[in-house]
């Protein structure tokens, strides 16, 4: 069964408090050299066929429900 991946990320200009919290924890754990962290969401959708029509439909799903276009961007790709 093919799998389609939707990645949803906060827009660059939108504050990402969760990413900031993770970033803030790194030096305390002894990890250095990471200058920024952004936290997003990954959705894995099992589909019957990863054809053009399905990908267009997944993009519609991503735009309608999985992301909020006011604050988030998304990408759609076929796994593997």
């Amino acid at each position, binding site marked *: 069964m093919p799998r389609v991946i939707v990645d949803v990320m906060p827009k660059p200009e939108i*504050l990402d*408090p*969760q990413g900031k919290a993770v970033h803030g924890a790194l030096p305390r754990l002894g990890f250095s050299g990471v200058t920024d962290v952004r936290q997003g969401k990954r959705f894995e959708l099992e589909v019957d066929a990863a054809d053009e029509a399905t990908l267009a439909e997944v993009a519609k799903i991503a735009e309608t*429900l999985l992301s*909020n276009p*006011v*604050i988030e961007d998304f990408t759609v790709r076929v796994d593997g």
Partner: protein
Amino acid sequence: MAPKVGVVTFPGSLDDVDARRAVRIAGAEPVALWHGDHDLQGVDAIVLPGGFSYGDYLRCGAIARFAPIMTEVVAAANGGLPVLGICNGFQILCESHLLPGALIRNDHRTFVCRDQELVVENASTAWTSAYSVGQSVTVPLKNGEGGFVADAETLDRLEGEGQVVVRYAGGVNPNGSLRDIAGITNERGNVVGLMPHPEHAVEELTGPGTEGLGFFTSVLTSLVAR
């Protein structure tokens, strides 16, 4: 006969009972509406209450937006019916595109619960006519994801068109909301959303005062005037 104000209960709503109580204290008849119905039961106005509808899964309000009753709520709002969204209700209104912008996690990353001073900036909406412009109002605020954001163009438009209804005041911006915006309205003034909770400030015994009651008496006035 007293106007009927419906309060929608979603799975995870917390403040629906308090909202119905505020409606009753203001002198209207509260009507409990259920998220799974397609029936507004002939109400004259609607409140979307606070809480954590659908567990705040995905994004706050993202799933509630597609609840069966929201089809009717959106249509009624577009037709001019007064709709008030409080806290989670505000998030649902933004997700439904009835109001612009979005609510994100508080900038300080912790849940905030406090009596919050607000200043009224628009006293001509269906829900704020009992107040005057510049009036200070203190009501409880409790949220984890209450930071109001929108792009600069939208913020300029909201301010330019007088669609900012209430702003955080008293020198405290409790959640990182851009331009201290606590609540906004649509162009028509019938749909209002705000993060603070006026329904928790309607009786001296159970809140910081009664300064929240005006939201509910306002809608009564606007309904009687119609």
